[in-house]
């Protein structure tokens, strides 16, 4: 029509529909989708930033470039030019000497600005009060670990010889943020000023020195710098970032991110289901309007245009409101949690807004478009013949569009295309299977139900009359339950996984350099003070030099873990039995008849990175002697557990003639730290290393992550419930109409109530059953392919899910259909057309 102005009219019609309350369900569904994904994105974005900054403390910076030779000045210049902070560092091992004693120490020469992340804490006296410092040792001064003071029999204020320089001990280090990076190098730390390096004359060409450049700044600049740097890195230069540095924190962070991403996906699936259902309802309720508009002279295209522009406006409106709401919810969440979260929580970035908006519009067009397109094909003749419903859109088109939308959203959340595709298609296959199963179940129950009481027949009649439609409904509710179940299961698994990783009594002290003859005394003493300890392991330092008679240096690739392992002495041990948590991947443990040649069991990651296979001959240099051993097994080691772990374990007797000391780890509550002084006095040669601060750091990060996970879970569950009600609402029209008819035919309210309850309970139980089957499949696939966890069936859920489904939908359905038994039947029948 000539004067037809689609957007303006669409807006006016939308306003009218809004007032009439017709759009509530669709708006609600969209609003939930956008709010949830925005809030989760905001929340996780901030928590993630906070966690990343905590993890950066372990590195002392956001990224570190390290090399055995001096780094080009260009690296630092380029970083400064990109607005990043830089701080140079030189590290080396050196023997510290006092008048009477000597001790190998790891020395770090730093310049101002160290540390860039985390804090350095010092004290003036052993066991004195510690304080945080923003300073570094002044030129001519040195800060050392308290245990070095003991070992060298020195006092604060004394001089320490570092190479040719004599530096005054001005403070003791109690907490060094980047200590964890060198967790397995156990020599005591010495911190000095970079300006004093020339005076030490230690750093000469060819000397074993590690040059490090600490770099920090905001994320985009870091990424830009990284992109610039990586192509330039030489073979001997290594870039370490927060994500790939620390095993314990890195893995916890990785899992948490995966969980939060998956939760967002669950929320999106929920929203998608809700949008699809409510858009379907919207479309069906507007068939008449569409036919009427065609009667009044609108073309097919114009009708479609009218409804699509309404859809777009609705989407824009719900998206904007959802973004705002999501932002508010996130603030509320942060405010609720302020005691538990770090005080300096970084402000959220803008990215969550994009994610929220994309979620809203993708869900809208992916899930709402197909049902709405039917509105364009309503025949105008429908005004005379109400039975004329438009042809449904091709199901390939509908599901194809929805799947594409899901793919896009998941890809956005996970950033992993393979994972996304396998999840979407795995999920689609599961959904298909679920639908088929539901249909079969319904078909199978038709015969027995036909002989049941009237209430049963009425209740099940709706479901049985159109098994395909009922299966679709069960599928929709099943998907909702499944999303909730998967998130519950993952959360439980993650938390218990972390708990196992760091139990409250995880060893918080390492004792090394225990002399063999003192081993029994030491064990007895530990026993007396009530410390729980791991076994005592004999340790001898040694270096791997050849693999099958080839020098090992030739076989190491850039950036490999192997490089780290061969550039320093490894702690070698021997044991009759493997440690409890080591698992043999290849080969077998020692033969019962001792082999005359030494055998060695190697840790799997090191073996992979050095290309070592079973039966390879490894050559070691240990205390000046060479030793050859055959690889008899390859072990997987759990590095997260804070008990002594070894790359190389030899067969008993292999290292018999070599000097060794003993090593163990134990747990002592921090309240009993005083006894440590007695222990150090009783065993002066022993080195005691406290890992409590590292544990604390990791625990606090895990506590944060746990919190995030818990709240996201609550979020998803709430979203699930809301969507459930919205979805139920969408299926009510037909039921209300039927109920009204039955009442006019004289059906008692009680009968209708019972029939309704039965129908919804049946629906809920079936949906719960579907959900548990699908979530088992989904978690199995996730554990196996994405999370690297061991999967076990969740038997309890097989019982609980159908029960919970029956209860939830039963109650919700009974509430939703109250109108059937309370309102005048005539009113309902009138309203329904």
């Amino acid at each position: 029509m000539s004067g037809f102005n689609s957007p303006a009219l669409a807006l006016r019609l939308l306003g009218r529909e809004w007032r009439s309350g017709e759009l509530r369900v669709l708006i609600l569904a969209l609003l939930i989708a956008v709010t949830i994904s925005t809030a989760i994105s905001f929340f996780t974005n901030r928590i993630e930033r906070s966690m990343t900054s905590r993890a950066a403390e372990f590195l002392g910076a956001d990224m570190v470039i390290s090399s055995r030779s001096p780094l080009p000045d260009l690296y630092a210049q380029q970083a400064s030019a990109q607005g990043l902070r830089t701080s140079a560092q030189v590290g080396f091992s050196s023997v510290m000497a006092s008048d009477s004693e000597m001790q190998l120490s790891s020395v770090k020469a730093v310049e101002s600005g160290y540390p860039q992340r985390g804090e350095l804490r010092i004290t003036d006296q052993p066991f004195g009060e510690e304080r945080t410092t923003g300073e570094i040792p002044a030129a001519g001064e040195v800060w050392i670990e308290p245990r070095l003071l003991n070992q060298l029999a020195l006092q604060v204020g004394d001089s320490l010889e570092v190479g040719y320089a004599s530096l005054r001990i001005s403070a003791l280090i109690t907490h060094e943020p980047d200590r964890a990076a060198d967790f397995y190098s156990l020599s005591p730390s010495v911190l000095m000023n970079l300006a004093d390096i020339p005076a030490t004359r230690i750093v000469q060409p060819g000397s074993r020195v590690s040059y490090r450049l600490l770099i920090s700044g905001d994320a985009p600049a870091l990424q830009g710098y990284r992109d610039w740097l990586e192509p330039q890195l030489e073979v001997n230069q290594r870039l370490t970032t927060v994500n790939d540095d620390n095993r314990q924190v890195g893995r916890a962070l990785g899992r948490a991110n995966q969980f939060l991403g998956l939760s967002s996906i669950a929320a999106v699936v929920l929203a998608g289901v809700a949008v699809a259902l409510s858009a379907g309802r919207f479309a069906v309720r507007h068939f008449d309007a569409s036919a009427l508009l065609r009667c009044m002279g609108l073309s097919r295209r114009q009708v479609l245009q009218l409804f699509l522009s309404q859809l777009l406006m609705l989407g824009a409106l719900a998206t904007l409101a959802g973004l705002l709401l999501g932002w508010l919810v996130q603030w509320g969440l942060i405010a609720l949690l302020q005691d538990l979260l770090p005080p300096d929580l970084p402000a959220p970035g803008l990215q969550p807004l994009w994610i929220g908006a994309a979620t809203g519009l993708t869900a809208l067009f992916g899930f709402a478009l197909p049902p709405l397109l039917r509105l364009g094909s309503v025949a105008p003749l429908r005004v005379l013949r109400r039975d004329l419903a438009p042809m449904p859109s091709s199901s390939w088109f509908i599901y194809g569009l929805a799947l594409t939308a899901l793919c896009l959203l998941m890809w956005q959340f996970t950033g992993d295309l393979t994972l996304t595709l396998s999840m979407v298609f795995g999920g689609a296959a599961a959904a298909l299977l679920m639908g088929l199963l539901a249909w079969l179940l319904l078909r199978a129950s038709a015969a027995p139900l036909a002989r049941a009481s009237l209430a049963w027949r009425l209740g099940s009649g709706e479901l049985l009359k159109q098994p395909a439609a009922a299966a679709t409904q069960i599928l929709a509710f099943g998907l909702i339950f499944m999303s909730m179940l998967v998130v519950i299961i993952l959360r439980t698994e993650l938390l218990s996984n972390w708990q196992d990783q760091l139990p409250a009594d995880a060893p918080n002290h390492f004792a090394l350099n225990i002399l063999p003859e003192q081993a029994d005394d030491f064990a007895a003493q530990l026993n007396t003070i009530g410390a729980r300890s791991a076994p005592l392991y004999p340790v001898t330092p040694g270096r791997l030099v050849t693999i099958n008679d080839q020098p090992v240096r030739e076989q190491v690739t850039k950036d490999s873990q192997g490089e780290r392992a061969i550039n320093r002495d490894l702690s070698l041990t021997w044991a009759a039995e493997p440690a409890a948590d080591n698992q043999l991947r290849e080969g077998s443990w020692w033969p019962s008849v001792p082999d005359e040649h030494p055998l060695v069991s190697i840790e799997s990651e090191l073996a992979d990175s050095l290309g070592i296979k079973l039966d390879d001959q490894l050559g070691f240099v240990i205390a000046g002697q060479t030793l050859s051993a055959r690889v008899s097994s390859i072990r997987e080691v759990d590095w997260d557990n804070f008990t002594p772990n070894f790359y190389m374990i030899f067969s008993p007797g292999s290292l018999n003639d070599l000097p060794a000391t003993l090593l163990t780890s134990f747990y002592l509550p921090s309240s009993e730290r005083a006894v440590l002084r007695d222990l150090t006095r009783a065993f002066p040669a022993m080195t005691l290393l406290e890992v409590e601060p590292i544990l604390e750091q990791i625990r606090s990060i895990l506590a944060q992550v746990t919190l995030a996970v818990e709240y996201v879970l609550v979020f998803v569950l709430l979203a699930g419930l809301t969507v459930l009600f919205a979805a139920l609402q969408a299926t009510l029209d037909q039921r209300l109409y039927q109920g009204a008819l039955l009442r006019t035919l004289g059906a008692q309210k009680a009968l209708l109530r019972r029939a309704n309850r039965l129908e919804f309970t049946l629906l809920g139980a079936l949906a719960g059953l579907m959900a548990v089957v699908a979530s088992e499949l989904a978690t199995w696939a996730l554990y196996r392919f994405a999370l690297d966890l061991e999967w076990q069936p969740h038997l309890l859920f097989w019982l609980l899910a159908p029960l919970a489904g029956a209860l939830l939908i039963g109650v919700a359905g009974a509430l939703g259909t109250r109108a059937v038994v309370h309102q005048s039947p005539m009113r309902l029948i009138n309203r329904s057309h």
Partner: protein
Amino acid sequence: MSDNVIIARHLSKVVSSSEAELTILDNVSLQITRGSSVAILGASGSGKSTLLSLLAGLDLPSGGEVELAGKVLNDLDEDQRAALRGAQVGFVFQSFQLLDSLTALENVMLPLELAGRRDARQRAAELLDRVGLAARTSHYPQQLSGGEQQRVAIARAFASEPAILFADEPTGNLDAATGERITDLLFELNREQQTTLVLVTHDARLAERCSSALHMQAGKLLEPAL
């Protein structure tokens, strides 16, 4: 342009079901002059509603053709027919067909807005006043009685000043007294606007008020048009 605003030539409508072909309309020809009022009478299933849907261009015949306001409907596609309806045709239905989500006023405004008329609100209000519903403008269809709903539908039908008004059993859902008042209203407005009225009914009293009547039986027209 001739004086005949509607011409049907040898119309037939056949639908095929799974068992057999069913002839709903069999070789119907008629002419309706501008400004006249014609009743199409017949029992249920006689094919009168089908005839209406063909005359109004809501459906296409299996055979024969319809000329509406000088245009042969067979030559037009669905969208062109829609445009023709928008410009020339108004409808009143047995089941009112008001949009539940719009108020009485908004329902009447709809065709005016579709035509892009700026005075839609004012004109709709006038029409509602004319049908005696000035006090009910902001009510939703659910809040109106059947008779009131049909008045809204009549106001809506006349809103766009159509040349032809098709009415399908306009009093079918109403009691006798209410039906009488609705009929009065329909004919009054018809006179005022000089609309051509085509009215499908099985109510002989209603048919008597038309200037001519056509009788349908088993898909055939019994008397030729006057």
